[in-house]
């Protein structure tokens, strides 16, 4: 196990080095010194090709980064992003509620994205930011969690899983990754919720919302959140917050997928189209007005 700086004795390509910064630096950073030609590097397992320019980090960051709003106006290809995800801890566990829309610029590329990655029966990750970035790195985190479990005969803690992801993100800092995720689960220390960012930020907390629609979700969450919510109230809150975010944020929409994390693992509660929720809440408003 090594974070940046400490190189253990290495023989051959470690499968876990695939796609890591260590592999990039080893094979691409020293290219001039070891005299390898571009051909030899192409398709070599264990390394990402970086552009053959003076400052690869800046190039990646300005051309490939998924950014909100008009940040990617200069890019030829606008990568899929845009989201509202939220998760909060309450006395009955953790609720995770997300939307399912992906946008590329003004184009809605999908209404059925799975933004909650079910890493294993007791660990969930959410995805916000660049769809490809989130998807790839969280699946790779899943690999690392599984390897930990196999090697050590016990499940990885949520703290450690989120730390692994944060470390990976920090080592790619400046390269234009875009990922805002929440890692959540129930381990021997109880229910845990961590927010991990593409610049290596890692925060432990009781409630987070991530994505372009997060501000709208926070408005609803902050209004109604209490630690002693019942399960029904918590589910309703998660559902409502996503609905309001999708209503106002153009980059969020589709289906609300909601999960409940318990001591025995996570449970998927529902997948409801936010359009249907609109009419449900409309009806509710009308009833309240008249009573």
């Amino acid at each position, binding site marked *: *196990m*090594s974070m940046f700086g*400490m190189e253990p004795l290495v*023989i051959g390509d470690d499968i876990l080095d695939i796609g890591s910064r260590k592999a990039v630096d080893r094979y691409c950073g020293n290219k001039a010194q070891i005299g390898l030609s571009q051909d030899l590097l192409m398709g070599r397992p264990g390394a990402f090709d970086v552009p053959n320019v003076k400052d690869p980090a800046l190039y990646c960051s300005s051309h490939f980064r998924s950014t909100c709003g008009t940040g990617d106006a200069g890019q030829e290809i606008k990568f899929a992003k845009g989201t509202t995800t939220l998760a909060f801890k309450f006395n009955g566990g953790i609720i995770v509620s997300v939307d399912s829309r992906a946008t590329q610029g003004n184009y809605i590329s999908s209404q059925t994205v799975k933004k909650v990655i079910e890493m294993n029966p007791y660990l969930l990750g959410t995805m916000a930011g660049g769809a490809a970035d989130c998807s790839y790195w969280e699946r790779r985190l899943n690999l690392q969690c599984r390897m930990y479990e196999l090697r050590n005969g*016990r499940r*990885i803690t949520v703290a*450690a899983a989120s730390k*692994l992801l944060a470390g990976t993100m920090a080592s790619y800092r400046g390269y234009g990754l875009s990922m805002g995720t929440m890692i959540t689960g129930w381990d021997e220390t109880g229910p845990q919720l961590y927010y991990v960012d593409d610049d290596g930020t890692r925060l432990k907390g009781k409630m987070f919302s991530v994505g372009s629609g997060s501000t709208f979700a926070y408005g609803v969450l902050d209004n109604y959140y209490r630690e002693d919510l019942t399960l029904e109230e918590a589910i309703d809150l998660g559902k409502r917050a996503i609905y309001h975010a999708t209503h106002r944020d153009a980059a969020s929409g589709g289906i609300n997928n909601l999960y409940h994390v318990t001591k025995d693992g996570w449970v998927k509660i529902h997948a409801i189209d936010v359009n249907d929720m609109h009419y449900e809440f409309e009806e509710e408003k009308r009833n309240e007005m008249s009573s």
Partner: protein
Amino acid sequence: MSYDRAITVFSPDGHLLQVEYSMEAVRRGSTVVGIQGKDCVVLAVEKRATAKLQDDRTIRKIFSIDDSTVLAFAGLTADARVLIDRVRVEAQSYRLIMEDAPSAEYLARFVAEIQQKYTQRGGVRPFGIATLLTGLDPPNQRPVLYQTDPAGTHSRWKAQVIGGNNAKSLREFLEKQYTADLDEAAAVKLAVQALMEVVDSGAKTMEVCVVRTGGKREMLSESVVQSTVQVLEQEQQAAQQQQQPVE
């Protein structure tokens, strides 16, 4: 063709001769005994006589790896120094990444992995040491005892001896004397008793370390070891007298 030149060459009958020779180096080292008790693990090492002008406080055989993990080795001291530093760094790296203390099994596996790597590479030789490592087992925080050898295997033991010419006979001695669930005093006594088979008696020739459930560890003071030695000597004398025919 000589099969013991290169480390990476098997002999026709399936031996890695360099690895076996490195186990010989372990045998030339001083003895270490490890005993697993009910709520503790005891490590006792033989302290060989040092030169008169040498400061023997600088000769250490029991090293702390982490808060509750302790390692004792038998074999080449310089090799041990290098390996111990690597394990110490790994333990801290684990703490940084996992936000948790590494288990004894994890660290023993790490030591074993390094030792194995050096048996499967050109241009290097194996580490000439075997280690006894004790630390906590995560679920219940009880201390456990692991052993590694130059071949790169690691395994858990209830009682084990490494180093010294008499390791085999000492192991047989332990097999006869060991019982499960020893309390700390009994475990210390058994460890000292085993060491006394191979060293000149006296506390000056032994160093004893105890790791307890929950992580507290202690290097026993010379006086405590000395009193254990005395008790054992008295018992031995009593046993001998009983055996002598009455004249």
